[in-house]
């Protein structure tokens, strides 16, 4: 029997906050195994010949021990239900609880993907309706629900663009233009699609520079990948002209929809000339992030790309739904199922709750909140690109640098003041980026207290009271962690 790694007998470190050993350290002589249903007969003699040699050594805990272990783990986490979570480009909005309830209905959670079509008409109807809504909201003519996440949607969109260019006899077009402010997934997805990237240097206002774009538009261009609003929080006001230029050069425009929350119900990317767009339903449509996933990244397309959508896809014939698996022109299959159905159903419930009359309030309040935060912080922190922002605002640590304080220190001090930090050091085009996305589900009181905390940190810098900032965070269960040590000699599994 092993003991927890802490030397003292009691695990409480303050109040009722607990240290918690790894479950491997909890392990003791196995109690009676969990009760299970099933056939208690023999396995076949043929199969017995392939028996596992060494036990897996997975330590079973009793049910009360298991619950306590994972509940304590959960208490070491910060989630959107715990508090403000202003991660830029991540859209950490409230995740409605009713959505969690309805996707757990047995007739939605316990269906096998290969059941006969007549036995799954209810779920297909919900998914088909979601397809129509996503097209309507984003301004496109068709959609695939298959991509499992945003980056997977990027890959899927580029596969469709590839198929379209190939059909035009343009196999040689392999250059993908990506602004230097883009998410890292954009160039990674292009590489996976057999294309290569050329980075567009952003203009002085943080937007795409038309002259820079024109310089790179030639007969090799397959696509431009644009995020709009972009990752500095600015709307690409030249979007129509940008799309026109790319189309005139024979390329297509991929829209990264990570920032769709700024536009939903107010304007539609499909109206602006973009050919396809992935939608992060785990951002704009409120499905929970789960500590890293699952997400879903449906891709909406215009008529140019619709023939190349992946299979399988859901089609409606009369009042009956079915899944189409064959299509000559399709860019192929990108996932082993029709999509992350449970995630997509939550998005359905979310859009249904807003309906046609309220959807625009998402974007309105999101943009209002970001501009309000920007307004309150713009004197204390450097604002690299002036003017109206959309759903997120970008600051840097330039003013704090002269006191020896970096963005990382600001972020860690925010933790001690009770806030999850903003996205830091992204986008890469400014030094010491702090990208703040409050979302529409935060009250004015929360925004004010966050801004007060940020101003207090800026004042501490000005006052030279910086040691506390270097030392932060002091309050969570762990202080700053040594990432260099972790990467140099990686320990990725526990050894008893």
């Amino acid at each position: 029997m092993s003991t927890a790694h802490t030397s003292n007998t009691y695990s409480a470190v303050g109040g009722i906050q607990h240290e918690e050993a790894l479950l491997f350290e909890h392990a003791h002589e196995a109690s009676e195994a969990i009760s299970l249903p099933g056939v208690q007969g023999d396995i076949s003699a043929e199969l017995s010949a392939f028996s596992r040699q060494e036990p897996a050594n997975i330590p079973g805990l009793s049910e009360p021990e298991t619950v306590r272990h994972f509940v304590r783990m959960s208490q070491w986490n910060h989630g959107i239900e715990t508090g403000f979570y202003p991660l830029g480009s991540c859209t950490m909005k409230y995740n409605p609880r009713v959505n969690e309830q309805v996707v757990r209905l047995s007739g939605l959670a316990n269906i096998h993907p290969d059941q006969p079509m007549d036995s799954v008409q209810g779920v297909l109807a919900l998914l088909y309706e979601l397809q129509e809504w996503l097209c309507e909201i984003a301004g496109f003519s068709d959609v695939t629900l298959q991509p499992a996440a945003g980056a997977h949607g990027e890959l899927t969109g580029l596969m469709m663009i590839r198929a379209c260019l190939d059909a035009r006899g343009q196999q040689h077009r392999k250059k993908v233009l990506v602004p230097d402010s883009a998410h890292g997934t954009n160039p990674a997805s292009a590489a996976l699609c057999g294309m290569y990237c050329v980075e567009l240097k952003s203009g002085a206002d943080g937007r795409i520079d038309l002259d820079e774009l024109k310089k790179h538009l030639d007969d090799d261009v397959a696509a431009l990948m644009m995020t709009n609003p972009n990752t500095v929080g600015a709307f690409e006001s030249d979007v129509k002209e940008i799309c026109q230029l790319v189309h005139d050069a024979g390329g297509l425009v991929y829209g990264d929809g990570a920032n769709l929350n700024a536009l939903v119900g107010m304007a539609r990317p499909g109206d602006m000339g973009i050919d396809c767009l992935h939608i992060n339903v785990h951002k704009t449509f409120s499905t929970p992030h789960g500590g890293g996933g699952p997400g879903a990244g449906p891709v909406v397309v215009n008529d140019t790309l619709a023939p190349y959508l992946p299979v399988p896809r859901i089609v409606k014939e009369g009042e009956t739904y079915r899944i189409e698996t064959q299509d000559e022109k399709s860019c192929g299959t990108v996932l082993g199922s029709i999509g992350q159905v449970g995630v997509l159903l939550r998005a359905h419930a979310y859009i249904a709750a807003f309906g046609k009359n309220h959807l625009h309030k998402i974007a309105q309040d999101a943009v209002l909140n970001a501009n309000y935060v920007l307004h309150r912080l713009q004197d204390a922190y450097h604002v690299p690109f002036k003017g109206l922002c959309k759903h997120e605002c970008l600051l840097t640590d330039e003013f704090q640098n002269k006191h020896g304080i970096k963005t990382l220190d600001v972020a860690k001090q925010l933790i001690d003041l009770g806030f999850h930090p903003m996205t830091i050091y992204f986008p890469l085009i400014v030094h010491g980026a702090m990208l703040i996305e409050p979302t529409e589900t935060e009250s004015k009181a929360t925004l004010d207290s966050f801004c007060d905390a940020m101003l207090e940190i800026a004042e501490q810098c000005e006052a030279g009271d910086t040691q506390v900032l270097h030392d932060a965070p002091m309050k969570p269960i762990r202080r700053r962690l040594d990432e260099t040590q972790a990467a140099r000699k990686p320990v990725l599994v526990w050894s008893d």
Partner: protein
Amino acid sequence: MRFLPHTDSDRDTMLEAIGMDVMSDLFADIPSEFHLEQDSLDLPDALSEAGIVRKFTQASEQNRHAGNTRCFLGGGTYHHFVPAVVDYVISRGEFLTAYTPYQPEISQGTLQTLFEFQTMIARLTGMDVSNASMYEAATATAEAALMARRITRKSKVVMAGSVNPRYRSVTQNYLSRLDGEYVEVATHDFSTDVDAIIASIDEDTACVIVQYPDFYGSVYDLAELRLACDAAKCLMVIAFSDASAFALIQSPGECGADIAVGSGQSLGIPMGFGGPHLGLLTCKQKYVRQMPGRVCGMTTDADGKRGFVLTLSTREQHIRREKATSNICSNQGLMCTAAATYMTLMGDEGLKTVATRSAAALHHLLSNLPKHVTAAQGARYNETVLSFVSEEKRSAFLVEARKRDMFAGIPLEQLDTKMASNHLLVSTTEMIEEADIQDYLVALEVAA
């Protein structure tokens, strides 16, 4: 609107603070031609919470499901038992509503759970290390092929025809835009032809991908393939669709896999009509720096206390961009928490019971099969192919089974169009009781 905290007076105060009059001023940077008219979208009116519950309940009741039928369907998705604690843990807001753990000091819950998940998955598969999840098994298989190409700096991928058609199709699609050969080796008798696979290996081969147990449930010896891979300096990739198997049968590690990928859906995750499931990717220690996806590692904090962080991030897209090992960003984090909770509740004993009963149910069924139906030969885990004398006979049986609230199997040609239409892929788990098998056998007799 109930999800938005602002009152109109809050909005006015805030607008005034930033020097604006009306909401539309906030969108002045969007050319006016793109502004939508109020209420112009073709969407239904807003539903109340009660309205949403009613709508989803009605849709749910239109479906048949494993809660009111007996499910003999597999093919990559399995109806295993999910203890209530699993759903409770992943419903905790601190797990459910957290982002990727970019700020480790306040994400130790997610991170330690991932570390425990990685450890248990490595142990179950018999491999050295696991990453912190891929989307699902088909994309994980594609990523394994890409990973093997990076490691070996060779490009040809040999795929067994007995790998799940969906894994094959996605992998082929991923590879089709990159240089290099992709070869599928034909399969016979619903099992894996190891000799034919070995014959397809040459000096350009980066990896061989086999499924074990294969798509048809066949369990077979991989020793010769391991030797052939060593001789050709290519990697042996094992794909799997039901991770529960490895509590009972030789693990991919024991079979000598270099990379093992597959589905963790069996480990506490409902079928959910295809997702979200859980992709697993494991490998030998020496290949960790070529792994795709996120991975959690152990370290210490400023006070010397043990803690956990996401690590080896220089492989990843946010640092390496187009040179990253993968484009994956969001993964299946919450499903890792589900699988970790499930495995903790089960332990070795529980996992072995699940696997044994899943296999025993199939053995019981096959031992009593009537003569007009033939089953594929050889060792099978919890899945096999039943062949009928004709498509008509198969249809008659499926109709009879449906009358008895059974989904009796997947017509094989639905998943693999090259297949004749008299076969049925049948799968069992611990959720199948003896009475269910009796009913299945009666349906076979009635429809004979």
